[in-house]
């Protein structure tokens, strides 16, 4: 069923096999084309939210829709990789092929696309992230910023409707971070960005969700929530330098 929401979760919960409750009845909504920040202290459950939305972890919820699919349903789960892309915290976890070309092609090939279509998508995705000509480079030889862009290219080549970015500015130097912000702002798709880098969240997101101890404790406009010193302090965060 087509809805206006790219992501709609009602009472989403997840407990790890040892019984630790990682997410507890969280409810949120992300509109199509919107860019939303997911902020919170370490261990708040940000990565777990992403893994649940991508169907990697089996969450329970009253209702859960991601790009029109239900990650709890096994048939829908098989279609999720084509619609939802995740950029992991550490790019080395994501770049497993021996050349950049093969890594970017990995996802599209898994979608069953023709070789010509895959080659076009690889070239297009590498161009989008500014890595044209890096096709035959070995991932382990790239700098942190280049690895991040290669990881993003690998996901963009699948043409997802939703992009989930987990701490995308981690391990990047200031220039790499600035380039990343520029790149994210050029991608006209739905994005959820989990980060401690609240200045980057301000630069990229209209709205934020504040997550702490597996619960959403606040959601609203980025400028308003991130400028709320009491809220930030209560949840292990700090008001971004620009809003002080």
């Amino acid at each position: 069923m087509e809805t206006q929401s790219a992501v709609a979760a009602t009472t989403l919960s997840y407990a790890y096999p040892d019984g630790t409750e990682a997410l507890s009845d969280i409810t949120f909504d992300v509109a199509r084309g919107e860019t939303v920040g997911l902020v919170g202290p370490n261990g708040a459950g940000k990565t777990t939210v992403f893994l649940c939305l991508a169907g990697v972890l089996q969450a329970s919820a009253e209702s859960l829709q991601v790009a029109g699919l239900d990650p709890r349903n096994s048939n829908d789960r098989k279609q999720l990789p084509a619609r939802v892309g995740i950029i992991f915290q550490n790019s080395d976890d994501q770049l497993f092929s021996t050349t950049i070309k093969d890594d970017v092609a990995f996802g599209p090939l898994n979608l069953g696309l023709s070789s010509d279509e895959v080659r076009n998508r690889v070239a297009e995705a590498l161009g989008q992230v500014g890595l044209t000509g890096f096709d035959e480079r070995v991932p382990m030889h790239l700098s942190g910023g280049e690895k991040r862009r290669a990881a993003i290219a690998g996901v963009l080549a699948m043409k997802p409707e939703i992009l989930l970015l987990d701490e995308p500015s981690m391990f990047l130097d200031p220039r790499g971070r600035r380039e990343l912000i520029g790149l994210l702002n050029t991608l006209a798709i739905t994005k959820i960005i989990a980060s401690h880098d609240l200045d980057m969240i301000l630069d990229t997101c209209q709205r934020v969700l504040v997550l702490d101890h597996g619960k959403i404790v606040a959601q609203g406009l980025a400028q308003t929530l991130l400028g709320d010193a009491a809220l930030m302090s209560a949840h292990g965060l700090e008001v971004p330098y620009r809003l002080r």
Partner: protein
Amino acid sequence: MPSDANHKPDLLSMTLAFDQPAGLPSFVARIDPRWKLAAIVLAAGGLAWLQSLGPAVAGMIASLLLVAVARLPWSWYLGRLVAALAVYLLFFLWLPFVVEQAHSTWDLGFVVLSETGTIRLAYLSAKAVAMISLILVLVGTTALPNLLKAARSMYVSRLLVFLMLLAYRYVFLLIEEFNRLRIALRVRGFRNGADLHSYRTIGQVAGTLLVRSAERSERVGQAMRCRGFDGEFRSLDDFETAWPDVVMFLTTVGFAALLVTWDLMIR
């Protein structure tokens, strides 16, 4: 020059023992990886079967010719050959010094050598050089993804193929992790010694590395599933058999069969 602090080209370059060398284009590099893999595996199997000096030396000469035809850079080839032979010699170098009653011997004055042992060392060494050379021709003229795809198309276990790919890709990260742990130990005053504290610390470092590897493999698995991985290995390059592939296969395997026949006749 990359600006990131975590870029360590020296460390990483050490881990690329099986990277394709920047060699000249060659006939062997253009052979369909499936035919090349089949030919070299069968030829290496034939060489392993040999038990006589003559056929083993002939096999070694033929494999060196193949190295030349493949136009592998000699520095790349010799570096790897010597490293592999050094490990091999650790196990077989003692053969000439083992003198049994039935053996004829060579008395050099300061040492008595077993003729049988020396001949065994010679043919085993010739076989080792030949087999290592064949493997280096294979990995030196075929990109790893193509080699793995060829292995899959020849029904090599999917699990084994992926194990090889991921081991190749992540071994350098393990080395990085190990180096970080080593530095962390040194800055806290640890110096390795032959005592219980050192052994316990080394055990803990090994355990930490294992745990980190397990965590990383979990994350890599998640990342692969998120990009639609269903357990099948796919590659952009499609294989196509041409007549030179068949000629190369028949020549290599035929020559190995001749060597085996010769060996069986003189045994």
